[in-house]
């Protein structure tokens, strides 16, 4: 587990009914004309606040769409780099390049700065995709992460 030293922000993409409902709050006359909306937040010093704000935004859009809960599927994924837990979960996000002995982060769509991804599907079609990211920083070496994780668990 590592603690990111940088602020974080979130991006939220709304499509289909979600985009229409979001725009309807601002500009009812054009709601049907918009295919997709991307919202970007300001920087948060607290990742907990950012997660809460992203969750609240997603919930607000879902509530507005009034789609039946049975048609909605929500997938949430947290980056184990930033969470205490089993080292094997983190290892699943890494890929060892045998040619260079480099360890590459391949989880979270290959972006190690992503803390959380949320996907809401409506009958399998994308409705809301949200991603919370830290601003880039120097990520510690794998050995340091292992040591820090062991210390956190002791």
């Amino acid at each position, binding site marked *: 587990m590592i603690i990111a030293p940088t602020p974080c*922000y*979130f991006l*939220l993409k709304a499509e289909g009914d979600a*985009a229409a409902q979001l*725009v309807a*709050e*601002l*500009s*009812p*006359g*054009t709601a*049907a*004309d*918009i*295919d*997709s*909306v*991307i*919202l*970007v*937040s*300001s920087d*948060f010093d607290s990742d907990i*606040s*950012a997660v*809460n*704000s992203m969750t*609240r*935004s997603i919930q*607000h859009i879902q509530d507005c769409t009034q789609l039946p809960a049975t048609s909605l599927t929500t997938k949430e994924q947290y980056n184990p780099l930033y969470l205490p837990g089993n080292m094997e979960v983190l290892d699943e996000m890494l890929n060892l390049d045998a040619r260079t002995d480099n360890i590459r982060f391949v989880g979270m769509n290959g972006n190690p700065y992503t803390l959380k991804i949320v996907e809401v599907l409506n009958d399998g079609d994308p409705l809301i995709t949200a991603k919370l990211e830290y601003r880039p920083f120097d990520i510690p070496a794998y050995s340091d992460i292992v040591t820090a994780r062991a210390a956190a668990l002791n």
Partner: protein
Amino acid sequence: MQAFSYTASVKLINDRIAAFDDEYPGVTDFNAASRTFDDYNTCMVSCKTLMDDMKGRINLKSPKIVYKVGSEVNPVYSKQETISKDWEPGEVARLWIYDEKMEKSGQIHAIGQARIYTAESSGRPLLS
């Protein structure tokens, strides 16, 4: 047959008050992509309505600065000089949300921009 679409980007924060903060805490940037329209007028009316509504929302939360919506048409079509010099191929017009006090000074402070594009008959934007 020509087709048209638009994109709109608006900064929702002003004087540290986010116009969107009640429903979407912390959100400061709004970006939208429209459907494809069969004619320019319908596309322009939709785009102007969106920008007017966004401006209205921002002005409600902005006690000191009053924003207005202005527009420019690509000189390729209008044959008139514009403040914008970076027109892209396929771009027909731009709308701005800007501080009206800055208009006379020539230093326009825009917080929103929408771009209208013409698209091929396939419906695919020339620029994507």
